């Protein structure tokens, strides 16, 4: 009930990308946003994180309009990992992760002991502890992605919005990330993530939301959502649905 959209339209340059969406994010779950390129997944995520202002309709956080909430307070509730990240010059990994604590520090940004504990923990969880003293600009794409993720996690918010968090990561780090998301979920966090890999979404997420051309086509558990008809309709894909032999979740195989 905490995060919901009401007749929400968002876009760029007067052109709506997300069209009149009514959506309530189920609390306490890992939710995947799926859909073909340009369907408005990222735009919807950005609107829910208040990066974009609605052209029409509203986003509500705990029953109140998102745009009426103080910036700093909201940053303690919602954290977004954007899809593309700048490469900041001359900033060390540990300093970047520490910036994740800025919604909690005083205006001067001084890090106290409690902050440091969270920073160290998140660096450990994302496996970047040994990179702490390196410059962010010197890392590989996958390493950098994990550093940004650690910063977002250091924000320690009950809701996490991730836009393709697995970008640039090799398979083993992708799997590690999905396990980490489950661990955070079990600690009580609600996680909304855009994913490209349908099978990954079906295996690791509780709730799938499928979008096409700015509208929500269907949502629900992986079993109920993933059907041959849906894959044809949304992705124009001829595929069969099988059961994953290990996780027992649905899995699509392209014909």
């Amino acid at each position, binding site marked *: 009930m905490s995060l919901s959209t009401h007749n929400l339209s968002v876009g760029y340059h007067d052109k709506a990308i997300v069209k009149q969406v009514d959506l309530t994010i189920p609390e306490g779950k890992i939710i995947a946003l799926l859909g073909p390129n340009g369907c408005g997944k990222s735009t919807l995520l950005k609107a829910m994180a*208040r*990066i974009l202002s609605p052209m029409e309709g509203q986003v509500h956080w705990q029953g109140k309009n998102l745009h009426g909430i103080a*910036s700093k307070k909201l940053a303690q509730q919602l954290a*977004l990992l954007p899809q593309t*990240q700048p490469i900041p010059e001359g900033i060390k990994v540990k300093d970047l992760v520490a910036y994740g604590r*800025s*919604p909690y520090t005083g*205006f001067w*940004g001084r890090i106290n002991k409690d902050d440091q504990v969270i920073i160290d923990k998140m660096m450990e969880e994302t496996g970047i502890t040994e990179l702490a003293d390196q410059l962010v600009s010197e890392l590989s794409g996958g390493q950098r992605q994990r550093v940004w993720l650690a910063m977002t996690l250091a*924000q320690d918010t009950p809701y996490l919005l991730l836009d393709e968090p697995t970008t640039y990561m090799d398979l083993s780090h992708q799997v590690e990330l999905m396990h980490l998301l489950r661990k955070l979920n079990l600690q009580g966090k609600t996680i909304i993530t855009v994913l490209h890999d349908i099978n990954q979404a079906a295996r690791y997420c509780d709730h799938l939301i499928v979008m096409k051309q700015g509208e929500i086509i269907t949502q629900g558990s992986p079993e109920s959502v993933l059907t041959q008809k849906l894959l044809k309709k949304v992705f124009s894909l001829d595929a069969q649905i099988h059961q994953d032999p290990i996780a027992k979740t649905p899995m699509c195989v392209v014909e």
Partner: protein
Amino acid sequence: MISIRLPFVGQCLILLLLLLVCSWTSLFSWSVITITPMDALHALYNMDKESIAQHIVHDLRLPRVLIGIMVGANLAAAGVIMQGLTQNPLASPSVLGINAGAALGMATVSTIAPWFGLLGSSVAAIIGGGIAWAFVMLLGSAWRGGNEHGRLVLAGVAISALCAALTKAVIIIAEDQAAGVLTWLAGSLTDARWQTFDSFWPVCVIGLLGAMLIAPTLNLLQLGDDNARNLGVSLMWVKLGGSFLVLLLVGSAISSVGAIGFVGLLVPHMARMLAGQDHRKFLPIAMMLGACLVVLSDTVSRAIIYPAETPAGAILALIGAPFFIYLVRKRTL
């Protein structure tokens, strides 16, 4: 990047010492009437009313040095804020048209519309600079942030050229005032007196304190607009507040001594090399470096064609232009 990694406090102390030495040297060197180094000190705390040398130090040289320090600190801080707000390494009052706009404002007031002089030349400079800055930001679509680096600089160059042309036109129309305006355009500390100091220092203190207050937020802007917003930064207020501070800092400096360029471009980069990317550290370093640089150029400006004076702005341009070229070559914009 060259990195000279002294502890932060050490760097501050060394720069402070350097600033004191530069200021002291500036108090006694290259004077037509001989001033001894001791005269310079005596004039500060134990003035001998009979000594002409000490009167020169107290009445002419001291305000000049103090104004030089403030101008340097102001322009350096303005450069740091502008580079932080626009995420553009070339952003500075001179490149993005504020200097030219402020100059146009000043020239218009002192020639065509002297009745406006009631409001004071600082106000004219701030308004002129503000209008130019607003145009540059709109043309360069700087509010959108991101990869518009080239566009912003282009807009700055275009607006600067336009303002410079208009300023020239104004000077031609009101020829009798031209000499004064031209000296002023070059930027010189020759006419810096206690009177200027008195009206300058309150604005300077407010501007520099404001700059320090905004420093931690500039750190977050380095992470890109989306991340900054996500971390609880209210972008619109930061950009408006930052722009206001820049106008305050640049406008007050320019109306005191004229259009001194390059400090705002040069010094932030030097400060980053010394203190790293944390604005909380390199901003105060930049202020002190800027102060040193302006006081030093002012001293040199008296030495070059002694006993006549070259405008300090010209000396700074001589140092600044090669550094500018170095930056353009080194950075991928």
